[in-house]
C-alpha cells in the first residue's frame, strides 16, 4: 500500500534532488537583501545628511517598500528557475517514462512538485528576510510598522513568485523542449507588455494626435490592453499612481493595494491553468517543440505579428531617417519573413520545415498588412475623432508653454511624486459650458496640422519650400485635450494649432480667459492642496531674493496673485514682458540643496499692481531699475545663430525662429564704462531668465545681444547676471558698434 505521506515524500524527494535550486536562491537573496541593506546602512552612517529621511523610515518605506521592485526582479528569476527546473522532466522522454509510470496520480505529482518549487524559494527567501530584520533590529530601526511592512513585503514577493512561477510551469507544460520552454516563459511573462509597447509605438508613429496621460504615460500597462502578463501586472503594481490630490501625494510610497487582489487572483488563476495544462498534456509531447498541436497556428500568429512590427521599429531606430516609412516597411517585411521561417524551423526542428505551411504564412502576411494599413492610413479615424457634445461630460485642456510652469510639479515633501503641468491639468480640470473649447478641438482635428520634418542638407535654406514651411511652422503650437466622456472613459488628444490664424487665437484666448481653466491650470490655486512653503523666490530684472513668509502672508500673496492672475489675458502675455516672477519653494532637509521649487516660476506682469505692492511690502521692489553708479562695467556680446540650428528648426520646429541657438561670436565683448551709455543700456534691458519659458507665445525679446553687468559691489545679487534687450529698444550706439 502506498504511504499516506506520499505527497510529503514527493516534496522531500524533489527538494533533495534539486537542492542546488534553494542554494542558488539563497545566495541571490543574500546579495539583494542583506548585502544591499548593509551597504545602505553604511551610507546612512557615513553620510547622514544625504537623506531627507531617517534610517527607520528608509528600512520601512524604501527597503521593504518602494525598492521591493528590485527584489521582484530576483524573485521572478528565481521563479523561472524553480518552474522550469521542476517541470523540465516533461521535456525528456526517459524521465517521463520513469515519473509517469510510477503509482502516483498526476494531480498529486503536479501539486507535490508545485509546492516543492514554492518551498525552494520560500525557505531561503524568508530566512534572508529574517536575517535582514535581525540586522535592522540590531540598528534599532525596527518598529511595529516595520514588522507590518516586512510581512507585506514577504506576502507580495511570494504572490509575485507564484505568478511568475506558474507562468514558467505553464510554459514548461505547453512546450516539449527546454529552449522553447524558456522562450515561451519569456513570451508569456511579457506578452501584454510587448503589446502595450507596440501599441504605444504604432500610435505614436502613425497618429499625429496620440497622447498618453494615464499611468504617467507608462505604455507597459496600457489600460486598453488586457494586462494578463505578469510583467505588466508587476510594473503596474509598483508604479506610483498619478497622485492628483494633495492627500494622495503626501503619502509616502504605498503599494497599490487595490491591485493586490488582482495579483492574488492572477496567481491563483495561473496556478490552475498550469495544473489543467499539466493534466491535459500528453506524455508523448516530450521532445516536441509544442505540446498542443492545436495551439501551433495561434502561437505563430501571436508571435509573428507583434514582433514583425517591433522589427520595423528596430530598423527605423537604426536608420538616420527614423520618420521615413521605407525602413519601417523593410523592417516589418524582414522581421515577418525571418520570424515565419524561424517559427517553422522551431516547430519542425529542421531546416527543411522552413517553408512549410504556406497558408499560414499567407494568413499572417494578410494580418500584418491589415494592421499596417489600419495604422498607417488611420482607418479608424483616430486623428479626426472628436466626441460629440452629447457624449461629453467635461473637457480638460493644457496649452503648452503659455504659463511658464516648471516641467515637473513637486507634490510632496519627499520629492518622489512629480506631475507635469499637463498631467495636473488633465486630472484637475473640468471645463464645461465654454463652446470655444470644443470648437477649437474640432477645428484642430479638422485642420490636422502637423510639423513637417526635412532631411537637412547644405544649402537647404535656399529651398523656398523649406523656408516657407519653417515660416509657417513658426506659428504652430501644441495643445492637449482630455475628453471626459459620459461613459466614464477619458480620451486624450494632442493637436497642433496655428496661432497666426485669428480664429484659432480667438478661441485660444477664450479658453485661457475661462476662469476654470486658469484655476485648474496650476496647483497654486488649488485649495485642496493646502500647501505651505518655506520660502518664496522673488525674481525681477535685476534682483533675485528668497523671502520667508508667515502662513498668513503666504495666503495673502497667493490670494492677491490669484485675483490678478484671473484677469490676465492672452493678449497681455503675448505683448507684455513680465517684470518678475514668484517661485514657491520647499526647503530640502539636505543642506546641499537649499530649495526645491514645487510649481515653477509664476510670472508677475506690470498689470499685477496689487501683487507688486504686496511683494514690495515684503521687501522686494520688482520694478526697481538700476542706477549707473552701481555698475562698474557692462559687457555686450553679439550672438550668432548656431551653425547647426537646422537641427532645432527641423526637430523643434515649434520655435523655429525664437528657439534658435545663439552662441557668442568669436570676437570679444564690447565693454561699456561710460555712465550715460550704461544708464541707457540699463533702461532698456530685461533679465534673460524669463526668456526661456516666455518664448512660446511672446515675441518681444531681442536675443541677438547678450548683456552682462558687473556691479561695483561684488556682494550684490546678480553681480554677473545676463540680460537682453527688448525688441526695438536696442541703443543706437550698440547698433552702430563696429566691434560687435
Amino acid at each position, binding site marked *: 500500500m*502506498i504511504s499516506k505521506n506520499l505527497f510529503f515524500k*514527493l516534496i522531500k524527494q524533489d527538494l533533495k*534532488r534539486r537542492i542546488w535550486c534553494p542554494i542558488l536562491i539563497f545566495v541571490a537573496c543574500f546579495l539583494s537583501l542583506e548585502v544591499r541593506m548593509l551597504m545602505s546602512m553604511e551610507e546612512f552612517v557615513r553620510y547622514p545628511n544625504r537623506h531627507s529621511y531617517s534610517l527607520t523610515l528608509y528600512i520601512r518605506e524604501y527597503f521593504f517598500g518602494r525598492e521591493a521592485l528590485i527584489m521582484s526582479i530576483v524573485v521572478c528569476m528565481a521563479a523561472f528557475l524553480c518552474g522550469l527546473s521542476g517541470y523540465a522532466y516533461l521535456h525528456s522522454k526517459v524521465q517521463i*517514462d520513469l515519473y509517469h509510470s510510477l503509482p502516483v496520480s498526476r494531480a498529486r505529482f503536479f501539486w507535490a512538485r508545485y509546492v516543492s518549487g514554492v518551498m525552494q524559494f520560500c525557505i531561503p527567501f524568508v530566512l534572508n528576510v529574517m536575517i535582514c530584520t535581525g540586522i535592522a533590529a540590531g540598528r534599532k530601526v525596527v518598529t511595529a510598522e516595520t514588522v507590518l511592512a516586512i510581512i507585506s513585503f514577504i506576502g507580495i514577493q511570494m504572490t509575485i513568485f507564484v505568478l511568475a512561477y506558474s507562468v514558467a510551469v505553464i510554459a514548461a507544460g505547453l512546450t516539449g523542449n527546454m529552449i522553447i520552454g524558456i522562450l515561451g516563459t519569456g513570451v508569456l511573462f511579457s506578452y501584454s507588455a510587448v503589446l502595450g509597447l507596440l501599441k504605444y509605438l504604432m500610435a505614436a508613429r502613425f497618429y499625429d494626435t496620440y497622447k498618453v496621460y494615464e499611468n504617467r504615460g507608462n505604455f507597459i500597462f496600457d489600460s486598453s490592453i488586457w494586462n494578463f502578463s505578469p510583467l505588466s501586472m508587476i510594473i503596474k503594481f509598483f508604479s506610483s499612481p498619478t497622485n492628483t490630490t494633495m492627500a494622495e501625494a503626501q503619502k509616502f510610497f504605498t503599494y497599490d493595494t487595490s491591485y493586490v487582489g488582482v495579483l492574488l487572483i492572477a496567481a491563483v488563476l495561473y496556478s490552475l491553468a498550469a495544473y489543467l495544462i499539466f493534466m491535459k498534456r500528453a506524455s508523448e509531447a516530450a521532445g516536441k517543440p509544442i505540446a498542443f498541436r492545436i495551439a501551433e497556428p495561434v502561437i505563430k500568429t501571436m508571435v509573428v505579428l507583434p514582433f514583425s512590427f517591433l522589427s520595423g521599429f528596430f530598423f527605423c531606430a537604426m536608420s538616420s531617417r527614423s520618420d521615413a516609412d521605407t525602413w519601417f516597411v523593410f523592417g516589418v517585411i524582414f522581421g515577418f519573413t525571418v520570424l515565419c521561417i524561424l517559427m517553422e524551423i522551431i516547430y519542425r526542428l529542421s531546416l527543411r520545415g522552413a517553408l512549410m505551411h504556406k497558408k499560414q504564412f499567407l494568413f499572417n502576411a494578410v494580418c500584418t498588412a491589415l494592421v499596417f494599413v489600419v495604422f498607417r492610413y488611420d482607418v479608424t479615424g483616430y486623428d479626426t475623432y472628436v466626441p460629440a457634445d452629447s457624449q461629453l461630460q467635461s473637457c480638460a485642456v493644457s496649452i503648452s508653454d503659455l504659463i511658464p510652469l516648471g516641467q515637473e510639479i513637486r507634490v510632496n515633501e519627499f520629492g518622489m511624486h512629480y506631475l507635469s503641468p499637463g498631467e495636473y491639468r488633465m486630472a484637475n480640470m473640468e471645463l464645461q459650458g465654454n463652446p470655444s473649447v470644443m470648437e477649437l478641438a474640432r477645428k484642430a482635428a479638422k485642420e490636422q496640422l502637423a510639423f513637417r520634418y526635412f532631411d537637412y542638407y547644405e544649402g537647404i535654406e535656399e529651398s523656398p519650400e523649406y523656408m516657407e514651411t519653417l515660416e509657417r511652422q513658426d506659428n504652430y503650437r501644441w495643445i492637449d485635450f482630455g475628453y471626459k466622456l459620459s461613459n466614464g472613459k477619458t480620451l486624450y488628444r494632442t493637436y497642433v494649432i496655428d496661432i497666426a490664424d485669428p480664429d484659432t487665437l480667438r478661441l485660444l484666448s477664450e479658453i485661457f480667459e475661462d476662469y476654470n481653466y486658469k484655476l485648474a491650470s496650476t496647483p497654486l490655486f488649488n485649495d485642496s492642496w493646502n500647501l505651505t512653503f518655506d520660502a518664496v523666490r522673488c525674481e525681477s530684472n535685476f534682483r533675485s531674493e528668497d523671502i520667508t513668509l508667515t502662513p498668513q502672508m503666504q495666503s495673502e500673496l497667493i490670494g492677491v496673485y490669484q485675483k490678478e492672475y484671473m484677469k490676465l489675458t492672452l493678449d497681455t502675455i503675448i505683448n507684455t514682458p513680465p517684470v518678475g516672477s514668484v517661485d514657491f519653494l520647499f526647503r530640502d532637509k539636505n543642506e546641499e540643496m537649499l530649495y526645491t521649487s514645487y510649481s515653477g516660476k509664476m510670472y508677475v506682469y506690470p498689470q499685477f499692481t496689487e501683487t507688486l505692492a504686496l511683494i514690495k511690502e515684503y521687501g522686494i521692489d520688482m520694478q526697481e531699475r538700476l542706477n549707473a553708479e552701481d555698475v562698474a562695467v557692462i559687457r555686450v556680446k553679439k550672438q550668432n545663430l548656431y551653425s547647426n540650428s537646422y537641427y532645432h528648426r527641423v526637430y523643434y520646429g515649434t520655435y523655429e525662429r525664437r528657439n534658435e541657438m545663439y552662441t557668442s561670436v568669436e570676437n570679444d565683448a564690447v565693454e561699456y564704462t561710460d555712465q550715460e551709455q550704461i544708464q541707457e543700456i540699463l533702461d532698456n534691458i530685461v533679465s534673460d531668465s524669463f526668456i526661456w519659458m516666455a518664448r512660446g507665445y511672446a515675441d518681444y525679446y531681442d536675443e541677438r545681444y547678450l548683456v552682462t553687468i558687473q556691479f561695483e559691489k561684488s556682494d550684490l545679487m546678480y553681480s554677473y547676471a545676463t540680460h537682453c534687450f527688448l525688441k526695438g529698444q536696442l541703443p543706437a550706439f550698440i547698433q552702430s558698434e563696429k566691434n560687435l
Partner: protein
Amino acid sequence: MITAANVTKHFGEVTAVNDISVTIRSGEVFGLIGTNGAGKSTFLRMASGVLKPDSGKILMDEQPVYENPSVKADIFYIPDDQYFLPNATPRDMAGFYQDYYASFDSVRFDEMLGNFQLKPDRRIHTFSKGMKKQLSVLLGICANTKYLFCDETFDGLDPVMRQAVKSIFAGELSERDFTPVIASHNLRELEDICDYVGILHQGGILMQKDLEEMKLNIHNVQCVFQNAEEEKTALGLLELVKAEKRGSLNNITVRGSEKEIMEKINTFSPVFAEIVPLTLEEIFISETEVVGYDIKKLIF
C-alpha cells in the same frame, strides 16, 4: 491478467499501435516481438500508464491502468533507456522506488546487488550499459510488483547475466504471482523464457500463441525415403508447412504431433527419419509465412 482491447495510438500522423487486442495471462512470461518501430514500446508505455490510448482500453485485472495509482502499484516498467536520477547510486534509486512501491524489498535488493557484483554506493552514471540494465532488472524484481514490463531489457546483457536474470525470473514465477512482459526484437533471446508470444508488426499484432503449444504442433523432420514414389506419397500425407531437399535428404516442417508425424513417415519404411527440434525463430518463420509474411524481413 492484462487485457488490451482494440488499442490504438497515434503520434501525429504516425500510427504507432493499430487496433491491438491481446490477452496476457497471469503467471506466464509474455514475449512481445517485433521490429524497431513495430509498436512494442508504445504498447508497454500504454500498459504501464505512461501513455493514454487514443482508443480501445487496457485493463489490468479488469481495472483501467491510465491514471490509476492503485493498479500502477502492481506494475514496474523498465524502459529501453532507463532514467536514473542525476548522480544517484543504486541505493539512492532503491530509496526512490521505496517511496512509491510499498513492498519494495531493500534487503533483497542489497543481497542481489552483491550477487551481481554491483556496488550499492557507486554512481550509476559510471556504470556500463549492461550494468545499468542489470540494475534496472534488480530494481524491478525487488519492487515486488505483480507485473514487470521489460522493454529490450535483455539487450546489452552478457550471456551469463542473461542467464542469471532468466533464473531470477524463473524463481519469481515459482514463488509468487508474477507476470513479466518482455519486449524484444530478438526471438532467440525470448525462446527459452517465454510461455506466450505475440508478434507485432507496423503497429498491429500478427499473432499470439502459446509457445509450448506451438512447439508441440509443429516439427522439423529430416528424412530419406526408399524411392521418389514413396517420398511423394509420404509427403502428400503430411501437413507440410515447408519442404526443402538436398540430394536425397528431405528437410520438412510439418504441422502435427511428433507421434502422428512419425507414424505416417514410418509407414513407408524410410531409410532415415528424425525429428529435429525447431527454434522459436523457425516456428515463427514457418507460421508467418503461412499467413503471408516474410518473417525474415520483419524480425531480422
